[in-house]
Structure formats: C-alpha cells, structure tokens
C-alpha cells in the first residue's frame, strides 16, 4: 500500500473512533445502549484472555472451511457439467438460477428439521449458500474458454477427466476464483446467520449471547471481529490469488 493511501485510511479510522468516543462522552444514550470504544476494546481483550473469542473464531472458521470446501468441489463439478452438457444446463441450470436467489438464512429452518441443532446443520447452510455462486461462475468460466485450448488438448490426446483437470479447470480459473470469492462471502454470511439461529457455538453464538446478556459492547466487539476476518480473507487471501492468476493468465 502506498504511504499516502495508508495515511488516509488510518486517519479515517482514527476519526471514526474520535467521533464515537465524542458521542459516548456526550451522554446522549446510556452506556448499556451505546458503549464507548474503550468498552469494546476491553470486551475484546476479555474475550481474548479467556479464550472464548478465539474458540468462537476457530469454530466459525472450521464450519466455514468445511462448508466452503463442499461448495467449491460441488459447485465446480456442477458448473463444468452445466457448461459441457447442454441437457444438464437446460434442466439443472434453470434450477440453479432459482436456488441462487434464496438467501442462505432461508435454508436454516430446513437445516434444523433435517439435521437438528448440529454442526452439520450449520455446515449445510454454509455450503448451500455458497455453492450456486461457485456453480454459476464456473459455468461462465468454462463457457468462455478459448475453444482452441480445448481443440489443441484434444488434438494432443486429452479426453474425459484429463481434459477437465488439465484444461477446463485451469482455463476457467480466472472466473472460478471470482466464484470462490463470492462463495466465501455468501458462506461467511451463512455461517454467522446460521450460528445466530442455531445458537450453538461460534461467532454468531457469541453475538446472540451478547444480546441475551444485554451486553452491547460484546455485540459490537464480535461484529468487529467478523468484519476483520472478512477484510483479511478478501483483501489478503483472495486479492493475492487473484493478482497472481490475472498476471499468469495474461489478463493484465
């Protein structure tokens, strides 16, 4: 990051904290509704010291990783079949577009009925929330492959699964990576949302506990953690992969 961009960012966040502290000091709202930044930091420190925060992060991340992995594997396979087999596209493809429009949180009642209040239920919500974004992007990616790649590969003897792993997936990868990124965003929303309703460990659960205890600073503290993880994954993990892929594939 360029120094002046960094300075702008730091200044901006410092300003938010100052305004926040100012609002708190003005005593417009009572502290149990509007906590000060110090309260929130204390809460974060407390959560960190007794380990509950890290346990919550770990639990949510694990569910996210399992759910997202299922979504990426399933979505990739489905997307490739939709792109390569017209009948699959005409039948399952139309359903995928419909299912994509269901918010992941709307799967929660079904997940509870099917899996009970278990980890599997939360993972189901996470995976199903992400899978269709992966599917659609993979589909688009495979459809947009330069046909000469496929012809050259076939010409050199590639077919079936060899063609899929050695050509279709790498050639569609720039699109697939956007699908993974979208999938991750949906999965992250899905996992937190599901944890709120399942109330069974994780960051969403900690949010709910904060609400039940009327502890606003805990609620805000957990929200900041959720946002922080989001920024980290989006801005560091995916950005790096994307940059590398874009350069390698000659897209910039």
């Amino acid at each position, binding site marked *: 990051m360029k120094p002046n961009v960094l300075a702008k960012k730091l200044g901006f966040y410092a300003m938010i904290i100052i305004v926040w502290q100012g609002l708190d000091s003005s005593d417009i709202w009572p502290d149990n509704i509007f906590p000060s930044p110090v309260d929130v930091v204390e809460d974060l420190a407390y959560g960190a010291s007794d380990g509950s925060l890290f346990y919550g992060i770990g639990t949510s991340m694990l569910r996210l990783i399992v759910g997202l992995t299922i979504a990426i594997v399933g979505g990739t396979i489905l997307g490739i079949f939709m792109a390569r087999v017209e009948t699959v596209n005409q039948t399952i493809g139309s359903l995928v577009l419909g299912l994509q429009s269901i918010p992941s949180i709307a799967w929660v009642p079904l997940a509870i009925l099917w899996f009970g209040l278990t980890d599997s239920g939360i993972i189901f919500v996470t995976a199903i929330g992400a899978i269709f974004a992966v599917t659609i992007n993979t589909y688009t990616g495979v459809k947009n492959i*330069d046909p*000469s*790649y496929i*012809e*050259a*590969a*076939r*010409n*050199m*003897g*590639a077919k079936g699964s*060899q063609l899929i792993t*050695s*050509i279709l997936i*790498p*050639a569609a*990868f720039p699109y697939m990576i956007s699908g993974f990124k979208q999938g991750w965003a949906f999965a992250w929303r899905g996992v937190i949302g599901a944890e709120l309703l399942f109330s069974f460990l994780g960051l969403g659960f900690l949010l709910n506990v904060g609400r039940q205890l009327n502890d606003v600073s805990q609620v805000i503290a957990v929200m900041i953690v959720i946002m922080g993880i989001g920024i980290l994954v989006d801005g560091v993990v995916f950005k790096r992969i994307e940059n590398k892929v874009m*350069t*390698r*594939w*000659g897209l910039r």
Partner: protein
Amino acid sequence: MGKLEARNIEKYFKHDGKPLKTLDGIDLNVQDGEFLCIVGPSGCGKSTFLRIIAGLEKPDNGEILLDGKPLSSTGPDRIMVFQEGALFPWLNVQDNVEYGLKIAGIPKEKRNEISNRYLDMMQLTQFATSFTYQLSTGMKQRVAIARALVMDPDVLLMDEPFAALDAQTRDLLLVEMQLIWQKTKKTIIFVTHNVAEAVILGTRVLVFSHRPAIIKKEFEIALPYPRTAEDIHGKNSPSYSLEILAELRPEVKK
C-alpha cells in the same frame, strides 16, 4: 499409396438455416515426407479441410486415410499448430511443450529429455520457465511448433501459423521451418493465404477455389532448399508465385 489420403471430402455449414457447401469433394494424396502447402481465398474452407484431417471436424462425406487406414477421430499421429498458437497460459514454456507427453503418461525424466531436445531446436531453452504472457508472438509460435514436434506426429498440420507475425519474424521462421522439415523429415500440410510463404516452403502447392472449394490447380515447386524470399523472386527461377497468384486472383474476387 500415399502417407495420407483424402477421398471425396465434402463439408456443409449452416448459413441462415440453409446448408452451405464449403468443400466440394476434395481428393488428395500426400506422400511421406512431403511439404504440402494449401493456398486459397479466405473462407474457402482450407482451414476446415485441415481440421477434418486433424479429426476436429467430421466431413459430411468422404474419408481420410492414414497409411491406408480410415480415421475417425483426433489422434497424436496428426498434430496441429494453430494460427494463434493456442498455448496454455497457466503452464510455462516447458510444461506447454510437454503437455501432450504428459497426457500420454510418459514419465517426467523422459518428458524432460524429449522437451529439452525440441526446446533447443527451437532456441527456447532459456525461456523454458517463462510464461506465455512474457513471450513475443514469434516466440509463442516457436513454442507451439515445439509442442507439436515433441509428439512426433506422422503428419504435422499447420493452420496459418505465421499469419499473426511481423515480416522479420516470419522470414526467420520460414528459414527455420525448412530446417526443421529437413531435420525431422515430417510430412507437413501447411495452410496459408500467403502465396510467397507457400512457394518458399512447399514441395507442392495446392490452390483451393472459392467456396464450394475444389482443388483448382496444383504446382510442384522444383526449387532447391533452403529457399529465401529472394530465391523465389529470382530471375532464373520459374515465377511460381505469379502463376499461383494468377490462379488465385479470380477466386478471391468471387
């Protein structure tokens, strides 16, 4: 019997819902080790003909025989060099060149040994770990040729491989192509719209007519190799280029 034989190849394309005849019964016999060039007006179906030989498209009529055996699909015995190279951007130069060998299940050491030989032949050794975005168009085409040669095909098919190159690079590759052909003794079928290119490279040049294409005329090019652009325009050599252009011009105007 030739190395490769085309018998009465016909091909239709759909145009505004109606079938449009593109190839009108192409009969052809290619001898082993021949460097056959095909020229024709754009859109005449010369590339389609090459793709049919490669097995990338099916003819609506007729058949292709290799060593007397009819062919039905693609195969590593006929490898194509595409106009834009069709190199895989996610692989480096060496892995691109080894792609077909890897698909064939050849172990890594053996692959490296073969690819190193052809990388050397195409003067690509120092670019082995480069990616395609780091290469010039001419370099890319060298990689594409190396990738085809490692497969040791019976017939090398080249679909306007030098069309996107600048004049200097093309001249260089025209010289190298003759050396490669003499060194490897491959049977080559080379499609181009550039008459000079065809005369420099070919032992024989076929002129395709406007669609529906037939073989309008063929020329044996009785000039010694290696040939240069100067040679084919020399005062002492027969003016093949002019004769071929005379055949081609009315077809282009159609």
